[in-house]
């Protein structure tokens, strides 16, 4: 084989290719959107993946609405304004668990090897699905609201209050998803991610003011619910959706979510980068 290289054949030779040292921000955004598009196509093609944000909210709303209404508030009409914001918080947290499970499954697939071999931002395969998941949180929130409305929930906050509540719910889901994403990068199998995430998800959702009035709880548990960011999210959702009021709770909720994100984004990204 001839070893002769024609230096004028610049177009196909590697020497002529401009090689970049890092990925520009603009390219990172394009890559993230392309991978978000991939995740959205998968959602459309594999509708079973959406069970947790479609069937689950219906189930929770109906179940809790009928079961606890009498015991906790005396009537359904007076319980729904307390319950629906709680269910919204709970379904978005449940929905965010899937982020970690899906990342783990994705990382085990052959296509992930190709992502790793491409000159793309290392964060893109993580950030793309996170972007697509915003759709899931919005879906979970909307369905809970629709079922709630069918059961007789009439939010007093008006359209603006409800819209603000939905945005807050989506932000909450997105921020908390980083916890589960981080677990997704640590655990060895998707099943393990699921199990470990449940251990975090249940206390987060239930050791809060989502379903029961806090003053019925023992003192120590009241303290726990007060530091749980989910409690602040639920209070903020109630303020926004029921009263249309932008209260300090909204600020605390956003601060809580931001804190979770600030802790777990670096953890998830670092742990993920180590594995890819």
């Amino acid at each position, binding site marked *: *084989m*001839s*070893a*002769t*290289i*024609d*230096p*004028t*054949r*610049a177009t*196909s*030779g*590697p*020497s*002529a*290719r401009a*090689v*970049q*040292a*890092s*990925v520009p921000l603009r*390219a990172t955004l*394009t*890559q993230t959107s*392309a*991978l978000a*598009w*991939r995740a959205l*196509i*998968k959602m459309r*093609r*594999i509708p079973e993946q959406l069970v947790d944000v479609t069937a689950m909210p219906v189930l929770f709303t109906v179940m809790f609405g009928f079961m606890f209404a009498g015991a906790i508030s005396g009537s359904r009409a007076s319980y729904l304004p307390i319950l629906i914001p709680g269910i919204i918080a709970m379904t978005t947290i449940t929905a965010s668990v899937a982020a970690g499970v899906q990342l783990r499954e994705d990382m085990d*697939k*052959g*296509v992930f*090897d*190709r*992502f*790793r*071999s*491409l*000159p*793309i931002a290392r964060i*893109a395969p993580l950030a793309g699905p996170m972007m697509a998941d915003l759709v899931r949180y919005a879906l979970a929130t909307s369905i809970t609201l629709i079922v709630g409305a069918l059961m007789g929930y009439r939010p007093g906050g008006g359209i603006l209050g409800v819209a603000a509540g939905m945005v807050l719910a989506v932000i909450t889901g997105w921020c908390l998803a980083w916890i589960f994403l981080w677990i997704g990068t640590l655990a060895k199998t998707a099943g393990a991610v699921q199990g470990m995430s449940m251990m975090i998800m249940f206390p987060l959702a239930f050791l809060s003011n989502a379903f029961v009035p806090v003053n019925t709880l023992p003192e120590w548990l009241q303290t726990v619910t007060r530091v749980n960011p989910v409690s602040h999210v639920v209070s903020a959702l109630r303020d926004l959706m029921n009263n249309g009021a932008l209260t300090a709770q909204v600020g605390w909720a956003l601060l809580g979510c931001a804190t979770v994100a600030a802790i777990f984004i670096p953890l998830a990204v670092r742990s993920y980068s180590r594995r890819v």
Partner: protein
Amino acid sequence: MPTETTTRPGRSNSGARQASAASSLSIAPAVEAHGLTKTFGANRAVDGIDLTVREGEIFGVLGPNGAGKTVTLNMLATLLPIDGGEARIFGHDVRSESHAVRQLIGVTGQYASVDEDLTGRENLWLFGRLQGLSSKKARSTGDDLLAKFDLTEAAHRPISQFSGGMRRRLDLAASLITRPALIFLDEPTTGLDPRTRGQMWDTIRDLVAEGSTILLTTQYLDEADALAGRIAMIDRGRKIAEGTPAELKAKIGKSSLRVQLVEGVDTAQATALAADLTRETPIPAATGSGFSVMLSDANQAADVLIALRNHHVDITHATVEQPSLDDVFLALTGHPSETPTPESKACDS
């Protein structure tokens, strides 16, 4: 010597600025690895491998399952961290300039590295977008590649409905979107039927004719022989031989003659004749009556057959066989290739 076509234009006094700027990199080999090492626990999966792949050639890494071929390739392709030694791709250090390296390579793995839930067209569009093509350009490049790889009809089907050969072709197409200068192919034909295998060989040859450099791994001696200009043989993480296919075959030398005799013929007489002519010890056939004997020169086959005919020893058939991968391994390592140790098998994935 005309300066425009010399390998080292930088040494010539050609004034072309562009040429001399390009020369500093174009003289760098496509792959240059020294002492490449990878350990998994106590197991040295790759144990100090040196490789040099020149631009424009097909270089074959040949070895049995578990020899460390895939691990070697994955280290060069930035998919696995390098534990020891160093590697450069077109002069770029794989460890410290991995992002640059990824811009120069295309990788087609042993297992489909495309998305199962997307269609062929969607897959190619996605990989085009990820590599900076506009949406429109990504679509047209994808369609061109689908046509080139005879996948247009299947373009709208999800990959999960593709046959093995179609998957492999799409996989390769996905690696070619940005026309990488160096293409890694990990066992490109393992599991393919003979016809699809032949098509894949043609495709690989076309790529090189268009200016790509290819590093492929294979378990098949005939594949390495048919495609590769040079071959490195790997066994248990070490390089045991390197050279052109002809050089490797010369190293273990001989082809052999296998003769099957008609039932009832005097086998002892036949083997004695063969032994006399070849000065080798014939090995009796495992089944039926017959023998095989090593040849120092393929012409000896005719001598043996003529002698048998002259002595009225009838044969049912005779074949002259090239040394197989097994023979090569046996000759070079003293152990057959078919029995990889359990540890080495575990680490090939």
